[in-house]
């Protein structure tokens, strides 16, 4: 329990330092926010057209459902990029030797590594989700509850996914391709209804590519709450994050024995 408390304190500390560092770059923030607004607007536009042309639901979802998963994806991604922005740079950090700096410090190397950077634009992503929710879900309290829970869980899961992908660098020397794609993949699976996929893909989305746990399960809980499934959601997320954490440290042992393919002697 003390470990968790210390971990939280560490994350909070990095958060504060990151904020002051990032505020040095206000100008590019506006541009990124603009780009994101346009991008998001495009998709809303698409779905509006789609639903005006088609009767009924698409993949079991109606317009509001889709807006929910879109909002949740955006906010969860934003949250993880605010707190753990280095998750996209893990390969670079390992290969450049920057990892050593974190290993030499007395705190948890992975957490320190992940927290040492923030993406200011991520606030835009986080905020956008809230705006979209406000516009489409109104005062649906269940939806809001699941949205907030989903941000925490989804954010953690996205971070875990990125960490897992980049951990392959310890084994293959350069996993920047896998690492770069991991989040893109997961987001792509998160922003469309679950029901459009069949068979094997659905299983994938409930395991290796846990998009269903990030957005689809929270949505179904928002529409019809079942405490059992909420427990399942929390349990799965905890397990997945724990596995990612362990996987990283196993890879780290390999790094420490010096047998990286890319030997940086």
């Amino acid at each position: 329990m003390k470990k968790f408390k210390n971990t939280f304190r560490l994350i909070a500390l990095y958060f504060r330092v990151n904020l002051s560092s990032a505020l040095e770059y206000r100008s590019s923030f506006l541009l990124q926010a603009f780009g994101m607004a346009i991008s998001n607007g495009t998709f809303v536009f698409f779905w509006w057209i789609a639903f005006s042309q088609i009767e009924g639901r698409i993949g079991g979802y109606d317009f509001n459902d889709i807006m929910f998963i879109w909002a949740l994806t955006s906010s969860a991604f934003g949250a993880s990029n605010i707190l753990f922005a280095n998750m996209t740079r893990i390969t670079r950090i390992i290969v450049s030797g920057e990892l050593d700096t974190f290993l030499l410090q007395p705190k948890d190397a992975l957490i320190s590594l992940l927290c040492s950077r923030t993406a200011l634009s991520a606030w835009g992503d986080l905020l956008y989700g809230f705006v979209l929710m406000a516009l489409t879900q109104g005062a649906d309290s269940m939806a809001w509850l699941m949205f907030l829970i989903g941000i925490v869980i989804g954010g953690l899961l996205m971070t875990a996914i990125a960490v897992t992908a980049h951990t392959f660098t310890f084994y293959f020397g350069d996993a920047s391709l896998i690492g770069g794609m991991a989040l893109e993949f997961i987001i792509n699976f998160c922003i469309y209804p679950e029901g459009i996929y069949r068979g094997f893909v659905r299983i994938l989305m409930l395991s290796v590519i846990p998009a269903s746990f990030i957005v689809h399960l929270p949505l179904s809980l928002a529409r019809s709450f079942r405490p059992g499934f909420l427990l399942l959601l929390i349990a799965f997320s905890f397990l997945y994050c724990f596995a990612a954490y362990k996987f990283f440290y196993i890879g780290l042992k390999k790094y420490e024995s010096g047998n990286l393919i890319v030997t940086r002697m």
Partner: protein
Amino acid sequence: MSAIEVRNLNKLYRARVKEEGLKASFRALIRPSYKEVEAVKNISFSVEQGEILAFIGPNGAGKSTTIKMLTGILHPTSGDISVLGLDPTKERKQLSYRIGTVFGQKSQLWFHLPPTDSFTLLGAIYDIDKMILKKRIEELTECFELGDLLKTPVRKLSLGQRIRCEVAASLLHSPDILFLDEPTIGLDVVVKHKIRELILKMNREQGTTIFLTSHDTGDIEQVCRRAVVIDHGEIILDQPVKKLKYDYLNRKIIAVRYDVDQHMEMPKGVTLEKAGKMGARLSVDTHICPIDEAMRWIISHGGVADITVEDPPMEEVISTIFSHQAVTG
């Protein structure tokens, strides 16, 4: 208890060799080929508290590998290491509270922030009590003359200023040992001198054990009291610097160019290494012929167009040591 105790330390790298090309990539997947590199071969030494020790050797000699094993970020293949009574491999976190590190190109300071913010962060990372941290920062600021630098974002500092802040940062938690891996690399002469001074000061005033790796002879001469020379993973010399200096660092290389042809007789202690039409490369044994005498002699012949005075390259010093060792056994 010695600060550092190393016995029969070995590090064998097994690197997977992957060649260029698609066919080779497939081959590598099915049957990977390995290349074994003995980075560190059976070295043993110990360091007492308060010592200043330099690990000297050319690139690839095993210096960085050794220091990484001492600090716990690399696991040895075999052998025993004890740093401050702890096993770096198994007790790295504990050890990290008591050691400081300055690793050449890697920075502990946040690029966009003033050093003072990084210091605060490091204070929290090392669980330093707020009052003690404040006092410590004041001490270090005075000692390292950081004054105005503290509030300037690191990206605006010159390299020399940055390194000073880096060293200060590594000392915030009053470590018992300070590990420095190539700390003066890339710095100009004046800054190098300053850094070396600061390291000496730390050792003098706080009793910090200093362990540094370098391939700069200046570091040996000015900072260390004891030098361990390592080459190809083996320790070939472990001596007080005074003796090392006397035995091996008494040579200076002078390259001179005249604007008229010169024929001259060398004074004692000066040997001609290479002669061109209007210039020469001379080797001066400063035991026999002090450097100022040699310079005076050269200039007295008049018409010096260009002159450079250098230390012999590290590789040469090492090979001299090597051959000397081979001869003396």
